[in-house]
């Protein structure tokens, strides 16, 4: 009996001690990668992390930064808030990361960001598009991607100018910051350029039957010119399928939630005339994009899975560029200042500049079109 007690006590003590591990070395710069390669985020975070590592590898092969090599410190955040907070803290405190990059989800970025902010470590969110993210977290938070305001405005402009739309129907997923923000900015821009939202309807992520919303749309006296759908990838295919199956053939317009193979797979022959905004077209003939696609394919044996791979790549390059320009590449505050003054950095997802006082880049938005299961590049819109 007493033996068991002592054993239990001993095991606990041994575990406490075992928790301690090693820290950073001198002739290297540690950059933390915050990605969830297991759990619900895995399908977009794994490509993101791959892109991030690829950029670091390329930088090291071409001599590193200020004579130092970059070491990417990484620990899986498991798509879960408790693990995520532990990981971010570990990368800062134990690995001595001078800057962090990662996360493709705004909610997770809002959890990870404040820890970096409190420690004064700059954090570059690679794919979290909540426009208010930098303001909500503080002056250490940057975005490598554009905000939802920019992409919503781009697709609204495309609807009015190129598709000649004057009236629109809006369907919004109420469950996400991303979808509600996309809807808000789309409507503001669309009405500001003289358009009219004839009906706004909503649903919740996870719904599978949209017949009620479609019936209300069909009951309208005059049909709207375009159908705007603010959805996350999970529902993008189902909604498209049901709208087309009901015989409604107007163009469907949306944001980067539609940048998923699910639209073509689920809607099949019904995936017609869908336009959406996203970060980059990997089929673009632009040399920067093609070099990235080639390097990624060589490194991982597969073409970049989606735009998040490119965003991960750009995130690392954004940090590297700041490290090069920083007055002291070991001082997080200097790196933060250098990041804030980023100008005209050529990146795969468009040229990145942070306007004065803003930590959200103004960059080009890519418009894509899906016709009969095939996604093609339409144009890029400069803000």
């Amino acid at each position: 009996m007493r033996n068991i007690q002592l054993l239990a006590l001993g095991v606990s003590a041994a575990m406490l001690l075992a928790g301690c591990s090693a820290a950073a070395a001198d002739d290297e710069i540690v950059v933390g990668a915050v990605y969830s390669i297991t759990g619900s985020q895995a399908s977009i975070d794994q490509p993101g992390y791959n892109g991030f590592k690829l950029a670091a590898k390329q930088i090291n092969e071409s001599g590193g930064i200020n004579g130092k090599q970059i070491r990417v410190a990484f620990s899986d955040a498991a798509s879960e808030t408790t693990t995520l907070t532990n990981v971010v803290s570990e990368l800062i405190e134990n690995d001595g990361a001078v800057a962090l990059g990662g996360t493709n989800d705004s909610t997770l970025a809002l959890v990870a960001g404040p820890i970096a902010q409190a420690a004064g470590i700059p954090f570059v969110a690679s794919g979290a598009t909540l426009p208010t993210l930098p303001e909500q977290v503080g002056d250490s938070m940057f975005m490598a991607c554009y905000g939802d305001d920019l992409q919503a405005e781009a697709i609204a402009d495309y609807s009015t100018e190129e598709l000649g739309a004057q009236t629109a129907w809006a369907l919004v997923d109420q469950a996400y910051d991303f979808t509600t923000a996309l809807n808000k900015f789309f409507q503001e821009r669309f009405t500001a350029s003289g358009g009219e939202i004839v009906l706004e309807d909503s649903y919740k992520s996870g719904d599978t039957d949209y017949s009620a919303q479609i019936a209300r749309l069909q009951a309208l006296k005059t049909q709207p010119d375009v159908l705007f759908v603010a959805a996350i990838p999970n529902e993008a295919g189902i909604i498209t399928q049901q709208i087309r199956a009901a015989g409604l053939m107007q163009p469907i317009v949306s944001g980067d939630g539609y940048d998923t193979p699910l639209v073509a797979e689920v809607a099949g022959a019904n995936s017609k005339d869908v336009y959406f905004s996203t970060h980059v077209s990997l089929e673009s003939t632009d040399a920067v994009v093609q070099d990235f696609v080639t390097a990624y394919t060589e490194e991982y044996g597969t073409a970049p899975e989606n735009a998040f791979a490119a965003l991960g790549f750009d995130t690392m390059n954004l940090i590297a560029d700041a490290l090069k320009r920083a007055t002291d590449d070991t001082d997080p505050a200097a790196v933060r200042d250098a990041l804030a003054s980023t100008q005209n950095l050529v990146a795969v997802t468009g040229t990145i500049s942070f306007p004065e006082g803003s930590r959200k880049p103004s960059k080009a938005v890519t418009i894509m079109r899906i016709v009969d299961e095939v996604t093609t590049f339409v144009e890029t819109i400069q803000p």
Partner: protein
Amino acid sequence: MKSFLTRKNVVLLGGIVLLVVLLGVADATLNNYYLRILQLMGIYIVLTASLNLTNGFTGDFSLGHAAFMAIGGYVSALLTMPLAARALQLADLPAWFQEFAMPFPLATVLGGLLAALVALPVGLVVLRLRGHYLAVMTLGLLIVVKSLASNWEPVTRGARGLSGLDSATTLWWAFGWAVVTVFVVWRLVHSPFGRSMIAVRDDSVAAASRGIYVFQIRLIAFIMSAFFGGVGGALLAHQLTAITPPTYSFDLTFLIVIMLVIGGSGSVTGSVIGAIIMTIVPVILRDLERRFELPGVSQIIIAAALIAFMIFRRQGLMGSREMHPSTWFMKKPATPVSVDAPQQ
């Protein structure tokens, strides 16, 4: 009159002084990462020790602990949220709600109280059942609370959750609550009331025939457990500085149940040991995952270890025995205070 300075009380006081010194040293020497893990440990001790009241001592196998945590978490988050974050996130709520932010300690207690208040009507209904039926009903409670959190947009912001909370959970709050929880649970279990709880667990018919109000005992244990569950939820929300529905999932309920089972349900010190082990093991395994670049392996290892545990030491590390520091310094072996392990 009995002297206050009994052997037991001296050991108790000594233990608390020792803990305060250790925490003080930890607070001064460890970096934020290790402090974060330690805080998590304190929170898990609160949760496991309180779950023990129902699952271990009264024999009511509840899977609803995460539901009470969610209630405590959301209530405290809504009360403490800083004004700037309020303006951004809770614009739909009445004006008076935009203009105050309650201190964290008070909000923690209120979070616990509301969880307890919810446990009253819920307990009146679900405690009519026992065994598997009760487990399923409490699981249902978790689903109800989660759907409420996901759909009550103006208040909880649905799936988006509430963020931008102060990181108010310190080492002192986490372990302060852990000490309070363990103390309350210990005193409760080692009181006539605790004897009744154990009697109800072991044979409720016999207990009833001896004049014990079985339902009342079970209800009080359920409510007490819910209170500390709510407190634990509030602490966790202010450790993560954000609260979203997926955090309070089945996984969390199961994690706490696993801690209890490993430590030994029916043993207060066992639940503390279980919480400590299940805080540290995943951290060490995550470290190994990193070193050998095998993401996801730690979950498989933990699952396999649990199966092995269930086969070879079903009653948990401590069974239903207690670790008695006051007896370590005595010559004669300690006598078991409690009876057999619960039959779950």
